[in-house]
């Protein structure tokens, strides 16, 4: 077998463009997913049954169906409802953030539930509303605890974003496919793609480690 190192060198700039797009999708999806997840996670702990039920249906539906199917649903089914074609980038981010939101919601729910009940009682007994106590007391403490699982979710999202290649969106994996279609260098290109993913996820996991350590120190003072 010939290993064409030159092919790797030539393709690398193109792959890096794809990697940039992957980072973009991931960043958007994780940010939106974080927002969705925070509200849904809180909603799952609501005392109002309808809010709680809606949140549970959302989480169960998303976690119970494959991301790939969700991407198809958004990209192919949604245009029929709204009556116009959806831009692949919008579809990709929508599907990924809705997906990520459900997992993040469960992380937030667990984090909030892990905070001692006395904290909410102390806040309420001082006359603060439920929302004020959540914002000033519960969420800041919960957030520190959920940094590691959120980091995992971030990494998972980055890898799962490769699935949006099926709707022709040119992120890292799709770029790789296109280059292989032209050059037949599947071994070299897939190896490069894998390597780039590895570098990116490794960077994130170091970042998360750093955040975790910093907050641990913050806790102590």
């Amino acid at each position, binding site marked *: 077998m010939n290993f064409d190192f030159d092919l790797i060198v030539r393709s690398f700039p193109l792959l890096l463009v794809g990697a940039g797009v992957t980072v973009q999708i991931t960043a958007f999806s994780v940010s939106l997913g974080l927002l969705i997840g925070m509200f849904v996670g809180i909603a799952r702990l609501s005392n109002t049954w309808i809010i709680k039920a809606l949140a549970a249906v959302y989480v169960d539906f998303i976690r119970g169906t494959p991301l790939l199917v969700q991407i198809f649903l958004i990209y192919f089914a949604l245009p029929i409802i709204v009556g116009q074609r959806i831009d692949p980038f919008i579809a990709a981010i929508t599907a990924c953030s809705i997906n990520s939101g459900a997992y993040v919601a469960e992380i937030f729910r667990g984090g909030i539930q892990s905070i001692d009940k*006395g904290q909410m009682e102390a806040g309420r007994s*001082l*006359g603060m509303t439920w929302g004020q106590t959540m914002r*000033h007391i519960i969420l800041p403490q919960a957030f520190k605890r959920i940094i590691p699982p959120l980091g995992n979710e971030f990494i998972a999202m980055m890898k799962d974003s490769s699935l949006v290649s099926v709707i022709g969106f040119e992120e890292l994996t799709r770029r790789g496919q296109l280059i292989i279609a032209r050059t037949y260098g599947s071994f070299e290109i897939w190896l490069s793609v894998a390597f780039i993913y590895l570098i990116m996820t490794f960077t994130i996991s170091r970042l998360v480690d750093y955040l975790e350590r910093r907050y641990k120190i913050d806790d102590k003072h």
Partner: protein
Amino acid sequence: MISIKNVHKHFGKLHVLKGINAHIAEKEVVVIIGPSGSGKSTLLRCINYLEEPTEGEIIVDGIPLTNESNINKVREEVGMVFQRFNLFPHKSVLENIILAPMTVRKTPKSEAVKIAQDLLVKVGLADKEHAYPEQLSGGQQQRVAIARALAMKPKIMLFDEPTSALDPEMVKEVLDVMKSLAHEGMTMAIVTHEMGFAREVGDRVLFMDEGRLVEEGTPEEIFSHAKEERTKSFLSKIL
């Protein structure tokens, strides 16, 4: 100041409060004693609606505890101190104290800080304002918790076994702070096992057992001349 009428509380099948009637007057220090599981903490927690009575009526400072906005209003006037302190671990001592005045009363920060520093002097922790709760001893944490409650300038203070989680040598420093509050004329309801304190500081003592108010009277009447057999047998075991 506080009027409790026929209050019942069920936890599922458990009937914890069985028709409590009580009254606490302005500037009165009422001490609630009784064996574990007698419902005394639950009664205290009903006064600021941390527990919702299943039946009955509670009126605090003329406000009936009926809906959410009334409850928040009452909680602004009623300070509570917990057995396990419940300080906010991610906030410094000063931040613990100024948070509620700033978010609830919209007190400007400079003013809230001034109030907090005065309170810290009062509870003897002026040098700890930048410390974090975990750096403090139990007794110090509880004194911060008292200062935190006082920062809302409450009309009534509730104490739920404030010294039960403390090492013995730290009990006194907390009781001393409570004593000075009582002398200043704060209306207080205290659940405690500190009988010496109850006797010295209490204007009135309520004895509860199995969800009922068995007997009430001055400390002298309860501790020296109890009428009910149940009160006598409880006191004979602990005094």
